[in-house]
């Protein structure tokens, strides 16, 4: 249902993505791991419509969406939770959630609100509080809840565990597992490869703009090179993976 084909992207003269192929099917959690600066966020920007690629296609439900602006892409059912959560700090928790439903004009949002509050009771408690007053963990929950309000078919998450204490990381990943149902697909970008492989059905490894490895969660986490480079095994040069 969702496929990235030969995507190349650049910032000015610097080519950041050098031909990416990737696929996510319904009901799957697919993870994309890679070091700082590999191009993970850039790929999500291309998919969500923020950045126009110089080459390649993004196929969603049979249609190439690369030239469509972000606000229309989310209406089609692709929702990005940005790196750093990007909670609206001057708006209340409730207003943030309502903004999450902005891509569904004219629809009744109360059902979705109930669902979100059931899944994240803390958000119901804090609904009148300004976004900026939430802790990092609560902000991540709000970002997840806000995305849920859009009822997307494809969730994309950019490093949801970033800057969270281990206990909160576990909580966030538990919620991500809860989001997984038969009719949604999840593309999870992470640097915390260990946690990502635990929840993912499949994964890709991105290095300097290219996919260097792909496989199931187990395959990747037992891969010697992945273990060395991303799972805290013996320190290995990252280039080794491309041999």
């Amino acid at each position, binding site marked *: 249902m969702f496929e990235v084909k030969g995507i190349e992207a650049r910032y000015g003269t610097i080519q950041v993505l050098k031909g990416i192929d990737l696929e996510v099917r319904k009901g799957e959690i697919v993870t994309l791991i890679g070091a700082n600066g590999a191009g993970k966020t850039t790929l999500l920007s291309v998919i969500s419509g923020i950045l126009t690629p110089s080459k390649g296609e993004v196929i969603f439900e049979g249609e190439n969406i690369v030239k469509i*602006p*972000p*606000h229309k892409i989310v209406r089609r059912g692709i929702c990005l939770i*940005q790196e750093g959560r990007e909670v609206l700090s001057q*708006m209340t928790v409730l207003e943030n959630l309502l903004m999450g439903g902005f891509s569904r004009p004219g629809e009744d949002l109360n059902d979705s609100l109930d669902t979100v509050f059931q899944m994240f009771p803390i958000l119901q408690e804090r609904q009148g509080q300004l976004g900026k007053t939430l802790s990092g963990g609560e902000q991540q929950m709000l970002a997840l809840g806000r995305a849920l309000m*859009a009822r997307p078919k494809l969730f994309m998450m950019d490093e949801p565990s970033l800057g969270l204490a281990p206990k909160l990381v576990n909580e966030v990943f538990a919620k991500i597992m809860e989001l997984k149902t038969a009719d949604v697909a999840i593309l999870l970008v992470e640097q915390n490869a260990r946690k990502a492989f635990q929840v993912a059905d499949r994964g890709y490894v991105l290095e300097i703009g290219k996919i260097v490895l792909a496989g199931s969660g187990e395959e990747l986490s037992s891969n010697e090179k992945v273990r060395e480079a991303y799972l805290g095994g013996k320190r290995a040069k990252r280039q080794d993976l491309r041999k």
Partner: protein
Amino acid sequence: MFLQQLVNGLTLGSTYSLLALGFTLVLGLLKMLNIAHGDVFMFGAFLGLSFAMLGMPLYLALILAMVGAGIVTIIIERLCFRPLRKAHFLMPLLSTIAFGIVLQNVATQIWGSEPSRYPQTTEIAQFQLGPVLVSSIDIIILATSILLMVGIDQFVKRTSFGRAMRATSEKPQTASLLGVNINWVIVFTFFVSGALAGVAGVLTALVYLQITPFIGIRQGLIGMVAMVIGGVGNLRGAMIGGLMIGIIEIMNDAYFTAGYRDIILFGLFLAFIVFKPEGLFGTKEQ
């Protein structure tokens, strides 16, 4: 006497509030200053004059002048802001100065540089409320201003589109990822800003009964003073700032000499910019 001046001050101030509100909407959203705002005010006043001359009732002339001034402001967005979004922040400042001067000269060509007299559009009735004499014009001005201000305040606060405006103002990229067409929000905000300037123009002309193509310069600056006093980007602050300036201006003229008026107002402006740049109601970070 004092109460009478207070009412006069509030009436004048409410037109400044409308101007300041339009300023602060655009500045708060785009972090960019529309220097031509005062000239949109002037243009709106002239449009109202022309429609009134055609024999239209006041409310219709007012609405059409609003729409006209709003459209002029959309043109400003297209011409002076949108192409320059990635340019140095001074560029839109310069482009709107140029647009303002063009607008003054267009108005001069259409309506002449001599003061134009506003036609008597409504029967002016006077009401004696205790010691205060209120004219129907005062009531129209106050009622229109209050209605618009409360309406916009509530719109931004409570409606879905108002939330989208605030989201765009804080994080445009995030807003677009949530489904907001930010270009449309920007155009809409500019339109509202211009419409408010247009109404303010017509209402002010009803008080002074004459206008020239050059009134926009001082009015624009006064609107800016009101905005800064209230705290940039703060809608309610802009309204209160406008009312304060109206009262100060009228009190000065009543108890002092008119010659000191702008010394006091712009002295206050300078004092705020230097010592309290966040204004009365803004937060420090703004």
